[in-house]
């Protein structure tokens, strides 16, 4: 038995080696003069962030199918899984630029992963564009990293303004995810601008990623009678928090959240409990900003038979931005692309995209949405100057 297994394993290894060489051989000869443009997709396809990665990749693929050839060359997507893990992310990024020789990189979901990959892009002077990494550290000190979404400080300010001015809330309770860099950052920016406006944070409670019971956190925060609860974090935990709040009888308390909430599972898991929660986002399929929004929504509905999530829209736009940048540069040379990105203005489905000298998208408007009748519906736009 064991001997056969040994032989089998050796044979399988040999076959796999052949297969492996074969598959890398196909596209190995990238580089400047080849007749394909290779766009790297740097996303978590497995691991804790797999859902986010998948949602973004859908948008990227859709744009890839829609836009077709570029500079008269075929465009090839090279997907590399960063496994939601910083060490794998650094290796995967390195593989994309070194081994797969991609011309430009898109991604990643999860700022931590983007940061871990950042050095590889910087060192190899490959332009990378993040779709949804909202942490300031992603582009800070990295001339080759760009992003098309707004930043956490902006998002925090928008939410604080909305809570204080529009909702008239003077007391806010916060429940946030301490083990999530995004949530910790957003809570901080929200707190700063909310307190600056004159509001008071009456109670704070914390939880960890993958926690499932939030009853105690809810009760301690609710004991201080806040007008609103701000709960930055992943949508899965957020849905459970709201569900448990309703089960505890806190039927009237409103919940505020960030852009990560806007995914179909929030409503699927949360059901009625998430009705009325308010989130910031960049995109609304029902309120088209331009023709691109309409095109994108139609394409998506045709392929998946459902409404797209905001992150899919960002995925679409990040591909679009890369496409337009290469087109404007007229080549896949990194410096030419960077030069083009300085002045480029792209009409994406999430609105117009321009970059500042940091590589961040210049955005002054955020969309606020709420959940109504089991759907994310447009609520308001907030402009911050």
């Amino acid at each position: 038995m064991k001997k056969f297994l040994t032989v089998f394993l050796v044979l399988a290894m040999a076959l796999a080696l052949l297969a492996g060489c074969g598959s890398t051989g196909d596209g190995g000869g990238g580089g400047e003069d080849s007749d394909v443009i290779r766009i790297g997709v740097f996303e978590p396809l497995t691991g804790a962030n797999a859902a986010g990665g998948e949602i973004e990749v859908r948008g990227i693929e859709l744009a890839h199918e829609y836009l077709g050839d570029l500079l008269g060359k075929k465009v090839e997507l090279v997907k590399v899984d960063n496994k939601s893990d910083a060490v794998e992310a650094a290796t995967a990024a390195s593989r994309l630029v070194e081994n797969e020789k991609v011309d430009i990189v898109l991604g990643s979901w999860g700022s931590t992963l983007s940061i871990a990959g950042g050095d590889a892009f910087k060192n190899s002077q490959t332009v990378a564009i993040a779709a949804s990494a909202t942490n300031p550290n992603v582009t800070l000190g990295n001339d080759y990293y760009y992003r098309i979404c707004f930043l956490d400080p902006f998002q925090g300010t928008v939410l604080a303004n909305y809570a204080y001015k529009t909702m008239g809330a003077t007391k806010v309770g916060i429940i946030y995810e301490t083990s999530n860099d995004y949530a910790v950052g957003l809570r901080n920016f929200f707190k700063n601008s909310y307190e600056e406006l004159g509001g008071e944070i009456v109670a704070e409670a914390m939880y960890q990623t993958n926690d499932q019971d939030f009853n105690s956190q809810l009760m301690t925060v609710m004991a201080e009678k806040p007008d609103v609860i701000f709960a930055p974090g992943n949508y899965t935990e957020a849905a459970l928090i709201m569900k448990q709040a309703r089960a505890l009888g806190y039927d009237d308390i409103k919940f505020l959240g960030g852009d990560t909430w806007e995914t179909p599972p929030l409503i699927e898991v949360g059901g009625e409990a998430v009705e009325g929660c308010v989130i910031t986002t960049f995109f609304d399929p029902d309120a088209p900003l331009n023709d691109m929004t309409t095109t994108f929504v139609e394409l998506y509905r045709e392929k998946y038979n459902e409404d797209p999530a905001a992150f899919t829209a960002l995925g679409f736009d990040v591909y679009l931005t890369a496409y337009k940048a290469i087109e404007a540069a007229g080549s896949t040379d990194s410096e030419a692309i960077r030069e083009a990105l300085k002045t480029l203005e792209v009409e994406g489905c999430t609105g117009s995209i321009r970059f500042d000298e940091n590589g961040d998208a210049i955005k002054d408007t955020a969309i606020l949405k709420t959940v109504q009748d089991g759907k994310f519906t447009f609520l308001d736009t907030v402009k911050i100057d």
Partner: protein
Amino acid sequence: MSKESKSPYLPATTQKHKGLSRTLSIVVLAAFAVFLYMANSGKILGSYELRIIRLCGVYAIAALSMNLVNGFTGQFSLGQAGFMAIGAYVTSLFIIPTAQKTAMYYVEPIAPWVESLQAPFIVALIIGGLVAALAAFLIGFPVLRLRGDYLAIATLGFSEIIRIFITNMIPITNGSLGLKNIPDTANVWWTTIAVAIVVIFMLRLMKTSYGRSFKAIRDDDVAAEAMGISLFRHKMLSFVIGGFLAGISGGLLASVVGAITPIYFRFTLAYEILLIVVLGGQGSITGSVVGACILTVAREWLRFMDNGFSIGPLTVPPIAGMRMLVFSILLMIIILFYRRGLFGSNEFSWAGLLRVIKSIPQGIKRLFTRKAKAEGGGS
């Protein structure tokens, strides 16, 4: 890479070849050094391959650290992830430039004493190792009284506690935001020389009375104690050295990756290191080094599976995660059928290699005649 020619299993005639073995080893090591030199100057390999070689080194040290405690001393500990986290954080805090530290801590201001920490990489690395060793020492006091699977859980628990503290001590560790801009000092030289030093240290250690005591405790702790070996002192020594090595590997890891977060140091990391030790063979120094290289390279190399592939008529569509599935099936086969791992508890020697090569034709012959019974033993 390393050699040990005094294996008790070898017949006396091989002593003759000692000189030859030494020459061979020197030649191979020199060739490897030249290769590394060429590689590091970017002549043969790109930074992707170099990164993999560096990671091999990092995991080799982590595996050696676990092997010392688990394989040589027989104390099943799963706490390596926590010690690696300590090493990684301490080292990083010493080598990240002050200005970048200040900018990074935007949730809560950085503690002033942390901000002012600065040291050259080698010093930072050793401090990281020492702090991890100190943690191992403190944890060892209560925990080393436990045995077997209880010890495994308790060390796993402590490693999670360390991680939870790192997540929550925001002024010192920047919490879940993690650290970035860690200087990329640990190039292939650093990691390879570190592995070499650790390997030589381990080989020496195993020849001292301490090393023999470790093995005696592993083989039979009651008998060892009866022979006058202080169980607690030796377990503690092994545990503290293990902690130190894990800390060093964590420090190197931080520098190789450039950015760390607490999430990476979850207890599942200890599982992965354990799998390296099992693959290489518990109680084999060579095994841990080779195992680390194989697993690290295999994980990268299997990536083509994620994009769909075909073996002959069989076509597998692209499914994310296929790579890890195949990887874990291979691991399971090793765990079940090659329990002693690649090297068992033996070390590499030229004579051993020769024997293996010589036995291959015979093995093939045996396979086809189907006569011989399996005798067990992997290498």
